């Protein structure tokens, strides 16, 4: 690519090498023409507007060229003189085509002066739209690339978290094993305790039953052994005790 640029710049360099006979310093030009020896890369941007012209035809450089010798009116005098010379010597002949040219030119000039600005603005707008579209595409491309880069970096950061995953998994496994082991211990303990408690409970139950039975048996025997004679005697004693008690109560009252 650089080679192409060098090739483009080569003619410019070639032109610049032998300075043209028209001395450059005399031209008070609004633009520098082929003065530099360097080949500029990348090329400088092309100028937006063309060279200045007066009356739409004559470049400004001509007036500037004549200014030192003839002042401001010089070129106009020259122009008038030339025109009169052509007319009087009939180098330019006035015929019907002159009239046609005059009409056509006046119409054209009127049209350009009246509509030129609008047409130019419209064309500029079209161009602007094209540029804006291209720019939008470029900006979007830049943004999407940037976003893609950020996404990739984020994914890389995410990937670093895999250690957590495996730690969590190992924790899970360890906890599961530990819980299992403890459950087994508890089971053993519970079973043994259950059996021992069963034995103790059996014994206490048996003892209880024996006691109850014993008590009942004793009661039964005692009740049986109370003969009717003894019953009458005990009833009489009770009555006497009651009488004594009631006497005592009457006395107290």
């Amino acid at each position, binding site marked *: *690519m650089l080679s192409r640029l060098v090739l483009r710049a080569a003619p410019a360099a070639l032109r610049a090498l032998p300075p043209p006979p028209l001395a450059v310093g005399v031209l008070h030009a609004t633009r520098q023409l082929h003065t530099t020896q360097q080949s500029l890369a*990348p090329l400088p*941007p*092309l100028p937006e507007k063309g060279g200045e012209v007066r009356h739409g035809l004559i470049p400004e450089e001509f007036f500037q060229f004549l200014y030192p010798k003839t002042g401001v009116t010089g070129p106009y005098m020259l122009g008038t003189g030339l025109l009169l010379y052509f007319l009087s010597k009939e180098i330019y002949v006035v015929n019907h085509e002159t009239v046609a040219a005059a009409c056509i030119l006046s119409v054209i000039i009127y049209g350009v002066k009246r509509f030129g600005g609008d047409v130019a603005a419209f064309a500029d707008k079209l161009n602007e739209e094209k*540029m804006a579209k*291209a*720019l939008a595409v*470029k900006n979007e*491309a*830049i943004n999407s*690339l*940037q976003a*893609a*880069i950020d996404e*990739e*970096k984020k*994914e*890389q*950061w*995410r*990937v*670093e*978290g*895999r250690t*957590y*995953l*495996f*730690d*969590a*998994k*190992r*924790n*899970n*496994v*360890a*906890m*599961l*094993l*530990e*819980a*299992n*082991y*403890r*459950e*087994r*211990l*508890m089971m*053993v*303990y*519970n079973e*043994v*305790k259950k*059996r*021992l408690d069963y*034995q*103790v409970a059996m*014994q206490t139950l048996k003892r209880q039953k024996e006691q109850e039975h014993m008590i009942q048996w004793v009661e039964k025997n005692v009740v049986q052994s109370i003969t009717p004679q003894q019953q009458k005697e005990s009833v009489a004693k009770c009555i006497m005790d009651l009488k004594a008690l009631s006497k005592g109560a009457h006395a107290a009252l």
Partner: protein
Amino acid sequence: MAGRRAALKAVDWAAFAERVPPNQRPMYNALKTRNDALTARLAALPEKPPAIDWAYYKANVAKAGMVDEFQKKFSALKVPEPVDTQSAKIDAQEQEAAKSTAEYIQASKARIAQYEQQLQKFKNMIPFEQMTFEDLHEAFPETKLDKEKYPYWPHKPIADL
């Protein structure tokens, strides 16, 4: 007991949660709930079962020798530790993950380099206002009209207009 006491590594769940991509959220949630359930279960179980009061039983159980027999067998009993079948698999998974992540990171870096290159190209482009058509074709080769393949205007298939 060394095989049993695999110390539980503290997992920073917050940092972990940050790094989970949204399409793997359900898996992460499942893992977390499982972890929480296991933690709760573990916390509910005492580390050692309470000691059996042999003296009380010896005094109260009438059957001769039963308590002694139980005590002897109980203290001789070794509860087998549950066998750890998964840790090896997890380690293998981790190795594999390390490898695949290294590959992924490589590919990712290559992609990033590519993107960076294109980004630089875009950033260093001259503005469109100063471009000629030649410059445009250099910057975007796809805009170049193939005059050999389509020698007649518009130099591209009509469908592409």
